[in-house]
């Protein structure tokens, strides 16, 4: 037997969409997490309800790496239509659990096979006709538990946790898992190197959260009161989780009254329109969408910017122009979202890089929107949003809401009614507003997307237009210094730096370790907001070469960074791009970097 490989492997389950395999995958994930072992699951699913192939990758590393990897160590093959290709993906020396009926006559000889008669076991051992299809997937959990040595206690925990709200389902699922475990014990002896062993140090105090769950929690704690949305993958679950959370925490049990309004709109235009209407009337409001929805929201985004209405817009990015690949990830909307709408529009954009930041940025986005009276975009993506990520438990907010510059009746009395909606009193570009319903004769003003003067009156005056646009630029400058600053790590002392943002973060962390081990350590700056912080230019100035890593074809942030740099620094910035719809693996950063920056001999 070869040397054992402990807690360092990637399991890939190849199944059929709609067969209930996701529940089995999650039980396995939670069981291994329960052993104290870091887990990083990635769900690769089709834009389909039932029948197309789907894969679940569960990466397990003792270091807690959370990026996707191309390497498959243990394959669970359930899908006859992809079986041949799935088998090719396994590394030499890997283990293959497969449906016994699949032929492996012409297959590889460098892997270990564990054929299991899943269909026969399901027919003979699972009594319930209605649940057989779902529970058949649980049999594989038992086989994997046998193969890797997952303790029964951890399996039980995984099942209980997965069926938290359906305790009746626990026993039938455990029974099905037991079928697989028994089959393993009765029929196989282990000849592959992979084992799991309980460990400590990385998992304590951590939870498993999807980015969209985190965003919904952030919105909940950020005080959202009006949310309008239109279903679209991969963003729908943001609002669906918000509905679940507000049903639980914002509903008066006595009266049924809800301290939130969540509207499923007729399209994305109406969704953002409702959110802007609510923001104008003083509510903390949001919408959530993905690429095609962002396209539809363009006109309203310009109204929000120019009429200066607070609203939070989540864009959970998927890949592609037009419909693209609706269930695959990218960072391809960033350039578009930043200037969404015609005519010199520019927005505040938050770029969460972890699920913890999905929570924090979602929560704080409402403060930024009201403080700067403008749309705030939170750009997450499918990888961050729809996969489970290991994270420290989120922190309770210690700061009260920042409701921005809103004049109350008392303020207007004090000012003897003298105020102007778009007058820059404080010199920061941020003006004062009143809310509809303010009981003062001077409170009212006319909000419009057409040209307006300081008092919000219609004007086509050239100077008034230009002055107002300059003030809006000033406001953006104020925000630039207030939005989440980049996180900089220059401990490598290298003259080479990496810049990344969003979900690319996980791959960068791992790539830096690999690069350091290869003798090519690199510094790192993670951008967390647009407009870009001045620190980005300073980071470039301190390094000879800086590589901007991003998940889009055209290097959108690479371009934005160069636009902001003095000419002498522009050539220092290079670009590394990944855009095939799969979450970026570390190797997609370390390999091109080592090619450009060979390790000195």
């Amino acid at each position, binding site marked *: 037997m070869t040397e054992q490989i402990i807690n360092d492997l990637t399991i890939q389950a190849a199944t059929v969409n709609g067969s209930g395999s996701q529940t089995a995958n999650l039980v396995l994930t939670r069981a291994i997490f329960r052993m104290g072992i870091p887990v990083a699951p990635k769900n690769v699913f089709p834009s389909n309800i039932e029948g197309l192939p789907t894969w679940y990758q569960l990466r397990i590393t003792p270091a807690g790496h959370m990026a996707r990897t191309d390497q498959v160590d243990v394959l669970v093959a359930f899908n006859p239509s992809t079986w041949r290709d799935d088998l090719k993906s396994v590394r030499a020396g890997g283990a293959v659990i497969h449906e016994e009926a699949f032929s492996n006559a012409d297959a590889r000889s460098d892997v270990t096979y564990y054929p299991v008669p899943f269909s026969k076991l399901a027919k003979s051992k699972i009594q319930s006709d209605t649940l057989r299809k779902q529970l058949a997937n649980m049999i594989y959990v038992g086989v994997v538990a046998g193969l890797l040595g997952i303790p029964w206690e951890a399996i039980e925990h995984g099942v209980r946790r997965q069926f938290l709200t359906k305790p009746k389902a626990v026993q039938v699922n455990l029974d099905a898992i037991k079928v697989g475990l028994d089959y393993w014990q009765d029929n196989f002896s282990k000849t592959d190197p992979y084992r799991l062993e309980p460990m400590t140090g990385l998992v304590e105090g*951590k*939870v*498993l959260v999807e980015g969209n*769950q985190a965003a919904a*929690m952030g919105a*909940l*704690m950020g*005080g*959202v*009161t*009006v949310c*309008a949305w239109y279903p679209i993958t991969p963003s729908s679950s943001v609002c669906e989780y918000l509905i679940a959370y507000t049903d639980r*925490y*914002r*509903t008066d049990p006595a*009266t*049924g*009254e*809800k*301290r939130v*309004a969540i*509207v499923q*709109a*007729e*399209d994305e*235009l*109406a*969704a953002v*329109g*409702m959110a*802007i*209407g*609510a*923001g*104008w*009337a*003083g*509510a903390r*409001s949001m919408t959530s969408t993905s690429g095609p929805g962002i396209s539809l929201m363009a006109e*309203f985004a310009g*109204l929000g910017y120019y009429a200066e209405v607070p609203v939070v817009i989540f864009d959970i990015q998927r890949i592609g122009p037009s419909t693209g690949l609706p269930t695959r990830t990218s960072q391809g909307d960033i350039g578009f979202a930043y200037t969404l709408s015609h005519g010199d529009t520019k927005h505040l954009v938050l770029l969460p890089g972890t699920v913890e930041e999905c929570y924090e940025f979602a929560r704080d986005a409402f403060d930024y929107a009201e403080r700067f009276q403008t749309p705030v975009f939170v750009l997450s993506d499918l990888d961050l949003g729809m996969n489970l990520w290991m994270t420290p*438990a989120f922190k*309770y*907010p210690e700061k*009260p*809401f920042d409701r921005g510059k809103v004049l109350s009746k008392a303020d207007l009395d004090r000012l003897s009614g003298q105020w102007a909606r778009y007058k820059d009193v404080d010199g920061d570009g941020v003006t004062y507003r*009143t*809310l*509809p*319903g303010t*009981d003062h*004769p*001077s*409170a*009212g003003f*006319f*909000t419009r*997307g*057409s040209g307006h003067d300081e008092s919000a*009156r219609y004007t086509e005056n050239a100077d008034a237009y230009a002055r107002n646009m300059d003030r809006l630029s000033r406001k953006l400058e104020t925000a630039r210094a207030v939005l989440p600053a980049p996180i900089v790590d220059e401990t490598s002392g290298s003259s080479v730096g990496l810049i990344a943002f969003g979900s690319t973060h996980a791959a960068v962390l791992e790539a830096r370790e690999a690069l350091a081990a290869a003798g090519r350590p690199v510094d790192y700056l993670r951008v967390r907001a647009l407009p870009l912080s001045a620190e980005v230019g300073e980071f470039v100035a301190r390094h000879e070469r800086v590589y901007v890593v991003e998940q889009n074809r055209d290097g959108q942030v690479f371009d934005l960074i160069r636009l902001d740099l003095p000419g002498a620094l522009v050539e220092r910035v290079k670009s590394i791009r990944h855009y095939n719809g799969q979450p970026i693996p570390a190797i997609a950063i370390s390999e091109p970097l080592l090619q450009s920056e060979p390790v000195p001999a």
Partner: protein
Amino acid sequence: MSVTLNRIGLQRDAYKGAATTLCAGCGHNSITNHMIKALYELGVEPHRLAKMSGIGCSSKTPAYFVETAHGFNGVHGRMPSLTTGAQLANRQLIMLGVSGDGDTASIGLGQFMHMIRRNIDCTYIIEDNGTYGLTKGQFSATADIGSVQKKGAVNTFQPIDPCAVALTLGCSFVARSFSGDGKQVVPLIKAAIAHRGTAIIDIVSPCVTFNDHDGSTKSYSWVKDHEESIADVSFVPFFEEVHVDYEPGTVRDVELHDGSHIMLKKLGEDHDPKDRRAAMRVIEEGRAAGHLVTGLLYVDTTMEDFASTEHIPDRPLKDLGEDDLRLSREDFETFMSEFA
């Protein structure tokens, strides 16, 4: 000269707005005056009024009444979504939307229909002139088939009738009127405001510049010759007593949500404003006979408005603070622990 104050102590002038920039003689200006009269006589508190609009000549008009109220002139055809959001943020607001036939029946038809479907509590006035004024005279979707453009082009398409569309969708208040008929428009606006739900008033409002010629069915002369009112409309606000001095059987009295009454005095054939199919029939028969049927076509005071259906509290959502909206520390800890 003595100044008459309304029930909240305001003069009529308090309901005026900026000077109109529309053409002299525009029907919309008459509607603005009807609006001022209705709001003044109702004693609407200006600070509770939210004037909403989209884009077009009609959508400019909220600037021309109740200058001290908040207004929002948004994007083309999207007034309903802005209104929906604002209403949810603050149920205390009186939402008053002004739109046009292009804004409602073309670019905004989807939002118009979905607002009705939800029964958002608002008054929705369509200043309907059958033409695109600001872009200089193209046909709109409410132009009748066969009607003639100023430069001679003939409209070959079926009109979209906003009232028929609204009735089909189960709109809880549907009326039609004519900008020149203040006697009818003013009580209809008052009733629409008193009604809790989406109240549509399609007001034919001639465009003197682009659509007031022979061959137009939205011209002053055509409407004057063809208007057929189904009932004399009068409105008794909740703060006044109802005096019944009509012969029995000649008047239908509908009590609205706030205790106001709309009284409909029979003119020709008796029309029951609570009969939706009858309303459709009246529209269809009027169209076949070449008439413009005006008056309160339909009202349903039993339907819940959207905010009520959604259990939104009376206290404005915009006023809720950290204690109302955030989880307690204990709940947060419990919630977080469920992700372990």
